């Protein structure tokens, strides 16, 4: 560690900083273009050559995005569905992951494979039967109607992640807890869990992202405005022949900016969530 630290001091223009720079530029340029075009007036969006900064900055696209479609409600719906699904997925996956990594239950191999098989089945093919099921159970047009398939289809991945992180936890810790007389559940909660914080965080962020961006199920299962999520809401802009890029970009900035700001504000927490246990911070 100390040696690496010294190297970092020795050269500012080292590979690491160069890599970081490339990373930042490649990631940011499209984002910059997104933001710039969200504040261009409609007549400038198609201009050739493209303008790097709008001649005239306008918030018309943002007004459009929020006035023409009930965007606030979609944000709430997305948050409710995705957060609930994420919490349930991470909760269930923690225990299943532990069981598959650490207990001598038989058939772990087949279970892991079965999970894999389920998560590879293309979701377009299950759209119709899932719809049939949801209709039979009266789940259409509700938050639960989206949460249930989101949980089921994202659990396999989360279980794989959690199991993988659990494998890395030293066995000595559990043994010590068991000798102290802790129950298995207690062992998982108070001994294992703190060790796999990065795993929890990773599984959580992945599940949230997967559900946050899901389009086809959200479109098909919740046709009523009151339960629409953001991806479907954004797809409502435009007419058969027109793609209003400005409005779409404005909506995209509006839903992405809060996430970015949250991550920035809580960046210490985010980083430590991902790097719990690391000596450097």
């Amino acid at each position, binding site marked *: 560690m100390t040696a690496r630290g010294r190297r970092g001091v020795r050269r500012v223009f080292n590979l690491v900083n160069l890599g970081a720079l490339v990373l930042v530029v490649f990631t940011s340029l499209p984002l910059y273009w997104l933001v710039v075009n969200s504040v261009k*007036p*409609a*007549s400038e*969006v*198609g*201009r*050739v050559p493209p303008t790097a900064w709008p001649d005239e900055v306008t918030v*018309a696209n943002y007004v459009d995005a929020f006035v*023409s479609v009930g965007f606030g409600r979609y944000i709430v719906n997305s948050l409710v569905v995705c957060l609930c699904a994420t919490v349930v997925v991470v909760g269930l996956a923690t225990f299943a992951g532990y069981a598959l990594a650490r207990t001598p239950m038989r058939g772990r191999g087949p279970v892991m494979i079965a999970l894999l098989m389920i998560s590879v089945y293309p979701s377009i093919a299950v*759209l*119709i*039967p899932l*719809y*049939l*099921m949801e*209709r*039979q*159970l009266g789940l259409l047009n509700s938050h639960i109607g989206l949460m*249930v398939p989101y949980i089921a289809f994202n659990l396999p991945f989360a279980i794989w992640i959690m199991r993988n992180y659990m494998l890395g936890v030293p066995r000595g810790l559990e043994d010590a807890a068991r000798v102290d007389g802790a129950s298995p559940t207690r062992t998982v909660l108070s001994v294992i869990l703190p060790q796999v914080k990065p795993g929890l965080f990773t599984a959580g962020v992945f599940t949230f992202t997967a559900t946050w961006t899901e389009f*086809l199920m959200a*479109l*098909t299962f919740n*046709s*009523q*405005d009151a339960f629409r999520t953001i991806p*479907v809401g954004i*797809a*409502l802009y*435009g*007419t*058969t*022949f*027109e*793609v209003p890029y400005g409005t779409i970009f404005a909506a995209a900035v509006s839903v992405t900016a809060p996430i970015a700001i949250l991550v920035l504000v809580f960046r210490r927490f985010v980083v430590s969530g991902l790097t719990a246990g690391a000596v450097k911070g």
Partner: protein
Amino acid sequence: MRLSRRSLLAGGAALAAASLAGCAREAGVADPMAGRSTELPEEPVTIDWLSQELSDNEGNDLRRTLIEAFHKRHPTITVRLVQVPPTTDVRRTTLTTQIASGAVTPDVYLGDCAWPAQFAHHSLAMPLGMLSDGADFWSGYPDPIVTAVSYEDRAWAFPMYLDIAFLYYRADLLHKHGLEPPATWEELHRTAGRLTEAGDVRYGFVWQGASSETLTCNFAEMLADAGGALMDERAEEVLVDSDAGRRALEFMSGLVADGVSPAAVGTFAEEQAMTAFSGGQSAFLRNWSYAWGAANAPGGSAVAGKVGATLRPTFEGSGRPRLSTLGGWHNFVNPHTRHLGAALAFARWVAQEEAQTIMATTSPYTPTLSSVLADPEVVGQDNPTFGLSADAEFVVRPTQSPHYPQISKAIYTTANPLIVDGGGDAGAVLSEMAEGMRRARDGEAL
């Protein structure tokens, strides 16, 4: 938790059993209308109408205006809006999933004019009676529209609005050079050349050559201009591989080769062509009725107030002028609706005089009803496309085939590379296209 999971499992098993049991049943095409009341409801009912957003001239929601007017006529019927993304394919997906699964809503849905045969064939729409029953009713619409909404001698949708293709031009530039809007493609080719050479515009003519349905529309028109057709009227015989086909295809790729159109038209759908034109980059644009409003939108267009519109030109020596592909959106009724009477009443009302007049006088959508289309008040509006619409002659795509999407795909995937490359062996492309269309027609394409 446990209980609900168990019931989920049980529900799943029951459904599997039910759907497999359903397989055994002899599946004759029963008339879903049989034994059902089409009377107007006496008790108040609410029906769902699925539609994309339709804005009127003031930017308000045309759908709500129509719904309110309908509610005044039929106070017992409340219509609720279900909004969908405007993309045709995305909408077909939601409707197929829902209706094939037996969903009772939406009761009425606005669908593409290319859908009736396919939707009828797959039991996704309610037959609205034999065409002969309502002869008086249907005689109010131009024949091609009636043909487009019918399949096996029955009507499957009530017409709502039309999309007609026009040639839009830069009136200011033509005036500057003392030129007239072209009446033939050859003339357009020359005029466009003069304007680009003069440096007034970057491109001469933009249209839609992207590898998608929009190219099928553009090609069908050019083909008809040259005196040909994609298929016969019943969508049975493939006619595309002809001299007319060659003339159309060679002219389209020639536009690119001669620099009248940029090679980029090979990637243009309506949106890109529109943006190029309203950005002041092109002298001519082929586009649908909506383009008048888009080209003249203050703030949204650099050429607002400088635009003219006319019906499409044709080829020199061709006897078929003023042609346009027939496009548009019509209201279908869900065969599983619980409120058949109300649903029929609403879908039918939108196709009739009161609604069509509201639409024609307050919004940019072209009415389908002939009498409204010819109404002096409608014709005399600022928007010239209304006045021109009544004179348009329609080119019907082979939508009479339930396999139309595959037929169209065989057309646009083979024609597109020729346009992108600005030339090639048109004869070989046509025979490949014809072969693909035949396989699609026979339901063999995958």
